[in-house]
């Protein structure tokens, strides 16, 4: 066959194979691009912004637990604690959204625990996992510490409980303690260091604390400044401040 023979059919002259009775229609929903490179002016895909609105996910009791827990993971020193930096607010928004519902994760059964090397195997998406774990941990504290909840324990008792979860020594009803702890720690760090547009890292304190300049995109003036402390003011993708001072952290 010649090269012509492979090109013998253009779109317009195409013939349907024998036996097909389907009408010749191009797909309606799939998008077809031809003849140009499309783009959409003026709408550069903005991130979804966290809002300073009241709680979307945590009940007041759950919020109390979360603030106590994240403030042990990132406690206050000369820099703000996790809650002061907006981490509980961040978690509330995340758990109320696509992340909380595990929208992009594969959540079909059957369910087995599996090996550590096989990763996350909980049938609970993050939102129900947090909800179940908070209750189970408060129940555990109630049994061990004379009816008190996690948030009412001393800092050192709280640390003991968290260490028990981290190691898997504390057994919780209906929830894998290590799975929850791993997620809580990761999400807390995310809330402390992610762009303020997502509701945490209030006033970019996480970035200021370590010296990360944030969403800057041109560092060419600094390439040759070897071994120098740069002290560059951070910026957010939302601008200098995400949703203004006075964002309620509670």
């Amino acid at each position, binding site marked *: 066959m010649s090269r012509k023979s492979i090109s013998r059919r253009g*779109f317009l002259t195409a013939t349907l194979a024998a036996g097909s009775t389907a009408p010749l229609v191009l797909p309606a929903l799939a998008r077809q691009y031809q003849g140009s490179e499309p783009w959409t002016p003026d709408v550069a895909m903005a991130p979804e912004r966290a809002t300073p609105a009241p709680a979307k996910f945590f009940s007041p009791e759950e919020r109390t637990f979360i603030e106590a827990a994240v403030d042990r993971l990132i406690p206050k020193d000369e820099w703000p604690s996790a809650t002061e930096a907006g981490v509980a607010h961040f978690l509330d928004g995340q758990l109320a959204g696509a992340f909380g519902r595990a929208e992009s994760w594969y959540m079909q059964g059957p369910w087995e625990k599996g090996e550590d090397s096989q990763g996350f195997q909980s049938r609970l998406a993050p939102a129900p996992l947090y909800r179940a774990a908070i209750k189970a941990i408060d129940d555990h504290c109630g049994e061990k510490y004379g009816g008190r909840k996690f948030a009412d324990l001393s800092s050192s008792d709280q640390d003991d409980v968290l260490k028990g979860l981290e190691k898997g020594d504390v057994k919780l009803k209906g929830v894998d303690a290590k799975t929850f702890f791993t997620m809580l720690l990761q999400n807390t760090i995310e809330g402390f260091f992610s762009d303020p547009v997502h509701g945490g890292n209030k006033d970019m304190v996480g970035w200021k604390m370590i010296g990360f300049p944030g969403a800057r995109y041109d560092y060419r003036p600094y390439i040759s400044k070897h071994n120098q402390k740069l002290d560059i003011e951070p910026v957010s993708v939302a601008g200098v401040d995400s949703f203004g001072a006075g964002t309620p952290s509670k």
Partner: protein
Amino acid sequence: MARKLPSVDVLIIGFGWTGAIMAEQLTAEGLQVLALERGVWRDTSTDFAVTNAQDELRYRYRGELFEEPARGTLTFRNSPTQTALPMRRLGSFLPGTNVGGSGVHWNGQTWRFLPTDFLTKTHNEQRYGPLAADMTVQDWAITYEELEPYYDQFEYLCGISGKAGNLKGVKQEGGNPFEGARSRDYPNPPMEMVYAPALFREAAAGLGFHPFPAPSANMSRPYTNPLGIGLGPCTYCGFCEKFACGNYSKATAQTTILPVLMRRDNFTLRTESEVLRILKDRSGKRATGVEYIDTEGQVWEQPADLVILASYILNNAHLMLVSKIGQPYDPATGQGVVGKNYAYQITSSVDLFFDDKYFNNFVGAGALGMIIDDFNGDNFDHAGLGFIGGGYIAQWTTNGRPIETRPVPDGTPKWGAKWKKAMRDSYLRSTSVATHGAVMSHRQNYLDLDPTYKDVYGRPLLRMTFDFTDNEHKMSKYLTDKATAIAKAMKPREFKVNGRDGHYSIVPYQTTHNTGGTIMGANPRESVTNKFLQSWDVPNLFLLGSGAFPQNAGYNPTGTVGALAYHAAKAIREQYLRAPGPLVQA
């Protein structure tokens, strides 16, 4: 029932790097080319604008550019005796989705494999004797010398920044002395180094090694490629891997091919169209097209004369298996080829902590670094070492993104007051030395279909059975020891070695360098394709991507993936179109 559409000359499944290369090459030949992409259209100005692109949570941790396991994932186990379970969320590797594919969020580390990498079996047997019993390495069906012009073609498409170490057999000062001969230098000079790679260069050279600047798809200066498309200089923003470049400074399909390809009348792109299977005629020796589904759930039959499978390597293997093309590999007998020789990469690192030095890692770029290749491939004598293969050792300064890149000294708790203080003390004053090692193919590392778990369309998921073997552990230990020696010579206050011991885990991110499963080879008994990436079983089907690698080398794969795509395109243009049929006789 599937509705049938008019036929096209060429149908490309998946529109990432290799799909775009092939579409550009075959539309230039005058063919009517249609690409089907399951994701959506993505362009720099709309979707990766510099005002939004540097968002670590959104892209790295919420995965806006990555495949969603909800739509289709794989199951994983370390050995055939275990029950494979679904990869429910992404971890160890991050395949991309949407137009541009994984190429949108790569770092841009653009390598050629060594000449001996293409002769893994014969070269190593000749030098070291018989290989380990279950090591199933094979020679590539192609040599470095055959592939060299196509490496060159891909590097000039991309505008790679680098320094040649071997021009036509003559060693060049300051380049990689171990590399194969190049026909000409890189299109752009190396990137300017920040402090950490400069310190690494000094330390490595002091130990007698041969440091050179990494080959980079981040532009060291403005560049216009052979298609006439311009790229801008890299601004060292530190958001390359896992992110899209908002600045037209990283070579991707979007920045090097699409502005030209999309204007060609004989090219059509259809997005939000997921191919369910490749269709064959009754003989089973000819692909007649594909069946795909749109977002409304309508199934379409798209006929074509020539089918190019250009999706991610794991999806290529999956589509071959669900389409029942080629004999699936059976590890018990060693028979069969589809799914055989899945391989990966083994990595390790050393973190360095200083009191008196500022590294400012946020001033970085995806392929900014200094490398030594002294312990890659067969660049060193393996006699008595108990392994073959190797890897490079590097100081990469890719980023200072604080959720992901936050080393703290050995012994620091993972949370609490001590962690917080260590984070503050270490962030600006730490750096790292990394190793990036080969994975040889092994009888029990393979891909097949899972007996239990299904994707959203009811197809069985791909099942991955993989673990590091003794060869990888010994090799990685050896590399890590060398990396540690360089780290010490950089004189840190203290350092932390992050070795890669024990079983492979699908949880922590390592690399998106999955290889094999649809390997190339000399004959249909031991491979899925010939050297032109043409299916032995179905000659009007070509399979692009790193699935062709018979085992993985110690380098990032994209340079070789691009070169193989150009090599296949040339064979289609100059040989296949004149006489459609097998290009190599079985």
